[in-house]
């Protein structure tokens, strides 16, 4: 999977657009989280995840989404190495930070994963890049 990042000006503060190309699974979801951490450390607090070229997302991608939102909120998510307790604890965090992440153009299969796992209610989804950026 390839990850590319662009920075865009926005009404409130700058927005990073992270484009994921390929397939997101257990082998690479931590790379996505680490990339978000790098952006946060460089000052990013708002992120658009461009999923137009993401052909597959496993359930590990859901963990990545929640982790990214927590990271952009200035906190640290639990490590998956901490086991099931960490995974469960993730759900206990405030849902406010999810507003820091917008989703752009998920493909149908990825969209179904977001829908079936109940994530679409929390992560705003757009089909237009400019609209996603302006939504912050």
């Amino acid at each position: 999977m390839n990850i590319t990042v662009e920075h865009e000006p926005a009404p409130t503060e700058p927005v990073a657009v992270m484009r994921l190309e390929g397939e997101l699974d257990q082998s690479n979801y931590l790379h996505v989280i680490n990339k978000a951490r790098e952006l946060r450390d460089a000052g990013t607090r708002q992120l658009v995840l461009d999923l137009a070229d993401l052909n597959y997302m496993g359930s590990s991608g859901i963990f990545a989404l929640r982790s990214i939102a927590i990271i952009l909120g200035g906190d640290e998510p639990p490590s998956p190495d901490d086991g099931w307790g960490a995974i469960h604890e993730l759900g206990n965090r405030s849902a406010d930070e999810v507003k820091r992440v917008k989703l752009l153009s998920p493909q149908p299969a990825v969209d179904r994963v977001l829908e079936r796992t109940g994530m679409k209610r929390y992560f705003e989804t757009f089909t237009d890049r400019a609209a996603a950026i302006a939504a912050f």
Partner: protein
Amino acid sequence: MAYVAPQGLLILASPLSEIDEPLAYQGGTSVLRIEAAVDDLATVRQFIREQARKAGAGSREVADIVQAVDESVSNSIIHGYRGSAGTVDIEAARDGSTFVVRVRDQAPPFDPTTVPLPDVNLPLEQRHLGGLGVLLTRELTDSMTYEYTRRGNELTLRKKLNTAGGGSDVEHHSRT
């Protein structure tokens, strides 16, 4: 390393071993063996994609089957083997109008059909995120059955082809 067998043929892996009693359905069975490593998941998805298409699955059916198998194999690797060496066998065959996939491993006994599923309707801060892989597997297949035999954990997934809807039918068997 992964090995793909043409339909109907057993494969030999190194060290020498056999996949005994593969699925035996009309049209033969294709088998993939991978090491228990997440880097092989892409190979699994591509294998299932190809087999499902050959069996006549439509694009959405293919996507559903690929998701379910990926989640199941991921669970074998991550929660079954937990970093230990091992292999996962993925067998695929068409049985009438049903596409059948069996995931087999030699990790400690674990029945995914008994995993409590998260309530996706709860507010986010009240939700546990564990169990999403099993949730997706159940929702995207028509049947998910488990057995523990002398050959290890065996999870069989069935997806009806060219039909709409489909509930989830869970059975649980355990024998040694």
